[in-house]
């Protein structure tokens, strides 16, 4: 029994597997650091040569741009202009997601239809739309809207629908002077309706029999809304209250808000990470964290720190928030002191002469869908719908065939089968890939730049063309899209998790 080797000999470091692994990783980090530092230094000299300094001043300065549509056509600061762009992006994204989901589901079901011609039409739709670049389609829709009637002086006047080369206009209800007073009644109505629904449902469970909880709650809501329509001026007493709140905020010192907001940012980040870690805790100790988990935690932590730093070092933000809150309550106060006019006004589309030359334009009085919005919205909706249709089809096919047979066996019709058995189950399967498509749609709205739709990318591009602030704008773009993607995927993940829990 001769063992020739002394035990526990330590290997030299150049042969030690662990040391080598870490060395390789550190070499890469060092390499990346060198590359980044070199590029940064070069960039610094280059921008210096051009006489530009990157900073945040442009966010406060009034930009020399006007935005073609959105909440603010003549923004008074760069930040405001970007904000208007963000709102436009979100408008297209949200309306596009809703429309694409509905259309995609219909086409996906049609794709599986027994009816030959319905089936073929859906197939042709999918194969056409999917195989043509989205940008070509968006430009095509923009070209299509050009063939609608042009506007000239003869077309001045009102009509029910206006489809013109300058956009589509449809009748709309807009809030008017008494709207906010009435809104209070609507809120009261909603609360009462919820209460009615809850009580009647309880009653039904306790005593049996039908109590028509849903219908009674609707009746309650409508009744209060109708009463409120006529007596809404009684709510005018809110006016002075809001004015008071407004002046209270006006008196708060800025430093207090800065400290408070920074603290909230740090606290929110810490709380999120703690809650996340708690949710990963199992009886056997902390579960193994995946890279995604680490990535998420680091991202949230960094964001919280950056947020806190922004609040501390850029007092303008806190001041703006303070001003906004003050202005908001001031605005409410003004709204509530209005005299008794109807809460809503019904408007119909019209064409009017505007500008110095007196060009015929669609009037703002009704809802106007501009050509840019129309092209982008139709484009992303049709395009995403084609992909959603394929996912829905795959999801339905993936639902166990036995389920369909069982449904048919208990006497459901095909429509009922689809509605009650197949779709709910397919929904679970298709949710993650459809969430992916929502993300794609959200990112694809950036193609609005090609049809002069003022989304965040287009506004950002205009700003950096004027100010030369390319880096800051690009960083804001990334922050916006990454945050948007994160929020969207969190929502999808939330539903995904809930659906999975239902399964147990």
């Amino acid at each position: 029994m001769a063992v020739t080797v002394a035990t526990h000999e330590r290997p030299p470091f150049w042969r030690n597997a662990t040391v080598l692994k870490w060395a390789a990783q550190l070499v890469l980090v060092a390499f990346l650091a060198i590359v980044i530092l070199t590029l940064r230094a070069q960039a610094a000299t280059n921008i210096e040569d051009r006489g530009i300094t990157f900073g945040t001043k442009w966010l406060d300065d009034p930009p020399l741009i006007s935005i073609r549509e959105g909440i603010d056509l003549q923004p008074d600061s760069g930040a405001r202009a970007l904000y208007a762009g963000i709102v436009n992006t979100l408008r297209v994204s949200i309306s596009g997601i809703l429309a694409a989901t509905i259309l995609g589901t219909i086409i996906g079901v049609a794709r599986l239809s027994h009816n030959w011609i319905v089936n073929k039409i859906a197939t042709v739709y999918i194969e056409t739309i999917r195989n043509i670049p989205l940008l070509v389609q968006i430009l095509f829709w923009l070209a299509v809207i050009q063939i609608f009637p042009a506007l000239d002086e003869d077309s001045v006047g009102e009509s029910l629908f206006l489809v013109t080369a300058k956009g589509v206009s449809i009748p709309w209800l807009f809030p008017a002077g008494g709207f906010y007073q009435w809104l209070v009644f609507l809120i009261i109505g909603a609360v009462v309706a919820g209460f009615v629904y809850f009580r009647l449902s309880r009653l039904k469970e306790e005593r049996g029999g039908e109590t028509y909880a849903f219908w009674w709650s609707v009746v309650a809501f409508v009744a209060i809304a109708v009463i409120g329509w006529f007596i809404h001026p009684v709510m005018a007493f809110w006016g002075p209250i809001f004015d008071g709140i407004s002046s209270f905020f006006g008196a708060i010192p800025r430093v207090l808000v800065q400290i408070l907001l920074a603290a909230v940012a740090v606290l929110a980040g810490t709380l999120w990470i703690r809650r996340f870690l708690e949710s990963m805790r199992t009886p056997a100790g902390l579960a193994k964290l995946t890279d995604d988990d680490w990535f998420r935690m680091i991202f949230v932590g960094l964001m919280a720190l950056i947020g806190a730093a922004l609040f501390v070092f850029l007092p303008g933000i806190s001041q703006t928030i303070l001003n906004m809150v003050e202005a908001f309550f001031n605005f409410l106060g003004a709204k509530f002191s209005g005299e008794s006019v109807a809460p809503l006004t019904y408007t119909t589309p019209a064409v009017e002469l505007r500008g110095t030359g007196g060009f015929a334009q669609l009037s703002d009085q009704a809802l106007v869908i501009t050509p840019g919005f129309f092209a982008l919205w139709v484009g992303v909706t049709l395009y995403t719908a084609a992909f959603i249709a394929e996912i829905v089809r795959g999801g339905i096919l993936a639902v166990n065939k036995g389920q369909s047979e069982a449904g048919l066996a208990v006497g459901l019709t095909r429509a009922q089968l689809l509605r009650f058995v197949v779709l709910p189950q397919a929904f679970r399967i298709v949710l993650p890939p459809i969430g992916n498509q929502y993300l794609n749609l959200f990112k694809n709205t950036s193609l609005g730049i090609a049809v002069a739709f003022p989304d965040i990318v287009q506004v950002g591009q205009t700003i950096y063309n004027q100010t030369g602030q390319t880096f800051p704008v690009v960083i804001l773009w990334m922050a916006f899209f990454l945050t948007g993607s994160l929020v969207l995927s969190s929502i999808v993940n939330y539903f995904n998790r809930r659906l999975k829990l239902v399964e147990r």
Partner: protein
Amino acid sequence: MAEKKIILPEIEELAPEPPPKGPVVWMKDNLFYSVSSTILTLLGLLIAVLFIRGMVGFILADERKWEAITTNMRLLMVQAYPQEASWRLWLALGIIFVLLGLSLAFWHAGGKAEPRKVGRAVAAAGGFVVFVVLVAPFETNARVFGLIIGGVLIVAGLGAVRLLGERAKEATVPVLLIAAILAGVAVAALWLIQVPVPDPEGGVGESQLAGIATTTSGPWTILYLVTIASYFLGLFLRRVIPERAGRLALVVLWTMAFPIIVLHLARGVEFQNVGQYLTIGVAFAAVGSLIIWFLADPARGELGRGLAGLLLVIAIASWVVSALILIRLMLLLLALFALGGPTFAGGERATRIRYVGVWVGAVVITVYMMLLATGVSLVQTSNETVFGGFFLTWILAIGGIALSFPMGVVLALGRTSTMPIFRLLSTIYIELVRGVPLITWLLVSIVVFPILFPLGVNFVAPAKVTLFIAFFSAAYLAENVRGGLQAISKGQTEAANALGMTTLQRTVFITLPQALRAVIPALVGQVIAIFKDTSLVAIVGLFDILKIGRDIIPTQTQPYNFLGSLRESLLAVAVFYWIFTFIFSRISLQLEERLGVGKR
């Protein structure tokens, strides 16, 4: 942008079966089986008729300026590429088609189809033609002509099935033959079909019919014949040389083909600094061979690894100090070869000699590529670059994919690595790139990227954009490849480890081949997505087919007035994109079936 392909479990489709018992029964089963179905059928028929009528009406309307497309076909395809240099592009296409023919033979492409299905497809096409000419607003002559063609197709298709009887159910028709016939028909059409061109004598908007120029139809015919000939050459070669060697040679040729075609052939390059580069190349080839010969000997042991590591440090350092790009690249390559030496070469004389041979080959290729990249273009155009039109679209797509492929594989390996820093860096890259739309990356490539380099260094716009398309695509590719890597069982890694393979050997021989094979359909999906995404370069000012179709053709007033032809040119552009993406997606489906992905 890039959309991920989802693979769902295969379950028998509920879609209608082809008619088993004659058309009437079939119609009753598939169109009118219930009241709601009848309503849907009528509604669907209405939509179909309206759509076809609208479409045909749009195409045939008098005010359509289709001559804007036919006249500008050259512009759409290659933009400002000079006519007298066009032989370069035809030669490039020739290379591609020869390789295509050889590859089809060497990879045993195409299976056999059932005559029954082929016949039915022909008859269905005939039926569609008849339907269209009946419902759409054609002139009487065209209608009669269409009816005859449709009728012939129906009779031929159904007749063939009837004649063959039971034998029609056996798969006997080679798919490649069908493809060749279809391509032949297309080539014949180039000679026979007349297209509208502007009438030089007539007034504004007048057009006349003329044949397609022989400068186009001639070369296409030759290419068609060359492809078929090279297919048969491939069949012959397959018997003469070992299949494995032939396939390897073809892969190398395909890889080389793209840079040679784009940088050398199409650009017509005049080399600069030849003497200097050749000297550096010869020096590196000679000294490097000695170093590698020395280090690849397993007897060197850890000393060898240490020296190779030192070489790597020197190579990295060379990027910080000022040096010729060629020298930096060579040092990096030398370090990599030295590091890989013990793994891929080793003790036997023969394997070491082969390894040194590969090194010399790599040096030759690198010097040649650098000469190409720094050379001056001989082809003179009015534009900043010689590339434009559909040609540019293809360059961007292929270049983007080809560059993104190695990056994506490395990122996927990084993301599945056991080393945390590699994993974290890969994850950050992938999520950052995927979270932001492509158009913002393209804008970055145009406005931010140039700031990072010294004033003397400027990339042409297509190069910048290709690079960023590659960066973008790499993130998506990495996610696809990661799926494949994660599907490989742990046992494969363990078996490789137990056999004493190093991590590098295991990755190259065991994990990557299996992972890539599993994700081929997803990769084709990625190719389709990138092909479509290249259209975004129109926004950042590159003259691809979309930009020409949208911004140039509809604004032409000289020599002909094509104002107002925007919808025509956009439709034409859409058709070009559609044809190729559709073909790609069919190939993807075929591969999916052939590889049995998604089936247990």
